[in-house]
């Protein structure tokens, strides 16, 4: 589904990703862990096409298509979802309006009929319920005045409504209390644990992986994947730390 080969990327001329390769197939959940500054968020933004993140070498294909040839909104319509580490506040635009525009933009791009207001609200209600997010919050401006945890839950509601084939979730667990972590973890399972979907979880901690069992865990260090293992690798990292596990 997603194939990254020898990816090099830089920000302001500084190389952050230095030959990263990774393949994610449908039905799989991969976790990427790594010390601060390893390039985890850079990888997420490169996949999401954020301006200023320049790919200098290598390739990324998504369902056989060159992802780097696609604009960010085209990537979304093709089924890619990026869960932000710091979700952005948009004053003056309600969540409902934002998500309806987003979903219908994607549907139009794919040649599908846009959803009516009623159809959209029904879907939004269902997904908000799944993530235990009050519908009243969806009427508020996008992320404005939301707590850190609410923002992250809102990201998951967006993911539920947009129903992507592939999700890159950048530190979705940060800022969540224990109960919210469980709700978000269960939400990820419900939305993304499907045979035709896949997810890449970027995280610092093992605790999210207690709820969302990864099939593969990769350690990213200095812009490359230096070690790959199963779910037990995350547990080992939690117990022993990066230095010891990478040296082994």
């Amino acid at each position, binding site marked *: 589904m997603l194939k990254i080969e020898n990816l090099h990327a830089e920000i302001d001329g500084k190389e952050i990703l230095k030959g990263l390769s990774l393949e994610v197939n449908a039905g799989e959940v991969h976790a990427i862990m790594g010390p601060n500054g390893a390039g985890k968020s850079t990888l997420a933004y490169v996949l*999401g*096409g*954020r*301006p200023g993140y320049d790919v200098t070498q290598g390739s990324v294909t998504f369902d056989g298509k060159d992802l780097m040839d696609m*604009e*960010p*909104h085209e*990537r*979304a*319509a093709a089924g890619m*979802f*990026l869960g*932000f580490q710091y*979700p*952005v*506040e*948009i*004053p*003056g*635009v309600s969540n409902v*309006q*934002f*998500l309806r*525009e*987003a*979903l219908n*933009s*994607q549907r139009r*791009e794919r040649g599908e009929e846009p959803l009516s207001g009623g159809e959209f609200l029904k879907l939004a209600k269902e997904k908000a319920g799944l993530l235990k997010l009050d519908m009243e919050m969806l009427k508020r401006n996008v992320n404005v005045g939301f707590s850190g945890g609410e923002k992250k839950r809102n990201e998951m509601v*967006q993911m539920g409504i*947009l129903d992507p084939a592939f999700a890159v979730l950048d530190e979705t667990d940060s800022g969540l209390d224990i109960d919210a972590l469980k709700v978000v973890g269960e939400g990820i399972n419900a939305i993304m644990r499907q045979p035709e979907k896949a997810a890449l979880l970027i995280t610092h901690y093992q605790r999210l992986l207690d709820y969302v069992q990864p099939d593969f865990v990769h350690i990213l260090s200095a812009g490359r994947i230096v070690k790959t293992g199963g779910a037990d690798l995350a547990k080992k990292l939690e117990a022993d730390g990066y230095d010891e596990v990478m040296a082994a």
Partner: protein
Amino acid sequence: MTDLPTTRDEAWRYADIDAVRRLGADALDRWQDLSIAPGETNRQCMIVGGDEPELHRIRIKAGEGARAELFVVIVGSDYARVEVKTELATGAHFEFGGVTIGGGDAVREFVTRTTHDEPEATSNQVVRAVHWGEATGNFLGAINVGRGGQRTDAAQDFKALVLEKGAAANAKPELEIFADDVKCAHGAAIGQMDEMARYYMASRGIAPDLAKKLLVRAFIADALAALEDEGEAERLLEAALDVLDDAGDRIA
């Protein structure tokens, strides 16, 4: 007949004086007078501006406890200036919402003078400017609180969105207060499009043009938030957004 102004006149310092000359001195003598009876409400909604210079001079007298509401969108491709002089009697309120939007090299401006000479009057002015090309949006807002204007509550809020290098905005708040029990607030901010918000929208599938339109809509909607007639608010909003649509791909 009134003499033609120059940019040395404070109220005309950012004006397009060549355009004012084209209008001629006669235009300066044309005032639209609005007198609102005590306790009454008067609401005016205007879309002004075209392909020739325009000057709209409005004088409002709001009687005791009256409410004057004025909402104006300046569109058009040539100089347009809307001047509003308001005198508020005891307990009267003035609500003003203004939007200037456009590109080219035109100057579009609001110049208001709000006089609180009697007690307990309130005023609230919200102006938003969105410009690109080499266009300029101005808001010169004077609030005069006389000795009799105790317990005045006056607010002025100006924000400009400059979409391209070369476009400009000028804000000139002017508060003159001679009473001691008064609340007067003013704020001005000039900035660019929030590119992170635009990227966030793109990451959810919203194409750049639509994202820009949604963000501009949200930005200018503040100026029309106090307009309770939703149909009129939508009409003004659409007039402003049509200008953005017409500019299309020519702005980033």
